[in-house]
């Protein structure tokens, strides 16, 4: 291929991330609500606690800008950025936890990093399984079309 000339707009990309941001914020809010109701049913939270899902959402979404590219990324480029994205995600999550005083010792730090890794791997795995199934369906129909 000679290269790509049609640019993916930065605004278009940001709009997609904004949609993801609100999904993440909703997820965090639900997680806080359900975990709180089950684990600390008698605790009450202050008003400023409502800001934490919004801030956590920003922390989670900002590293996604690593995927922005004016051109279509090749598989290798995407894989490289995925690895970079994961590293950035761990750094921002640990940074946020450190600033808010959640990182009390090395054990907690390690557990948080492992948790991020496990969730990342899990979502990638699920996505890969779904895409593989889609690829099988597409290949079957393409074969029919060629015949």
């Amino acid at each position, binding site marked *: *291929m*000679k*290269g*790509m*000339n*049609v*640019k*993916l707009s930065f605004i278009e990309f940001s709009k997609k991330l904004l949609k993801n941001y609100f999904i993440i914020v909703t997820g965090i809010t639900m997680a806080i609500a359900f975990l709180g109701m089950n684990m600390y049913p008698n605790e009450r939270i202050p008003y400023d606690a409502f800001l934490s899902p919004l801030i956590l959402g920003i922390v989670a979404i900002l590293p996604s800008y690593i*995927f922005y590219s004016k051109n*279509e*990324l*090749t*598989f290798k480029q*995407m*894989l490289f950025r*995925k690895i970079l994205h994961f590293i950035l995600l761990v750094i921002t999550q640990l940074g946020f936890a450190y600033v808010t005083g959640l990182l009390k010792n090395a054990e907690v730090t390690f557990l948080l990093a492992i948790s991020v890794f496990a969730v990342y791997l899990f979502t990638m795995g699920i*996505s*890969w399984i779904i*895409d*593989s199934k*889609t*690829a099988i*369906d*597409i*290949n079957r*129909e*393409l074969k029919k*079309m*060629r015949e």
Partner: protein
Amino acid sequence: MRVRIEKVNKKEEEHVLIRCCKANEEVLEIIDFIKSRDDTLLGYEDARKCQIPLRDVYYFEGVDNKVYAYLKNNVYEIKNKLYELEEIYSTKKFFRCSKSVLVNLLKIESVKPALNGRFNAKLLNGEQVIISRSYVPELKKILRI
């Protein structure tokens, strides 16, 4: 559907006759396919004009305000815009697989996942093109998945 081939003399014109109760979607698809066998488009190799059979095109790509048609071994410049080719040839099994590529579905050997909901399409000539995530639903619609 029964298929019958009838040989004709060299002097006679070759033609395809479809005998059906109704020209349904399947029949129209067959007509489109037959017509696409005859389609050619004008391409330029340096300054030389060439008639390119559409069926030989693997994909079209837009690069720096120019559009190129990629065949098995040759690349030709096409004077149309990519969106014009998309409009003209969408019924000829050409599919917009990313912002800058229009691929011939009949030239795709196989696809495999390429991270982030995208797919890597391996063409019959060994080249690979990316199917962007946002174009996958359209492909599934075309293939009736």
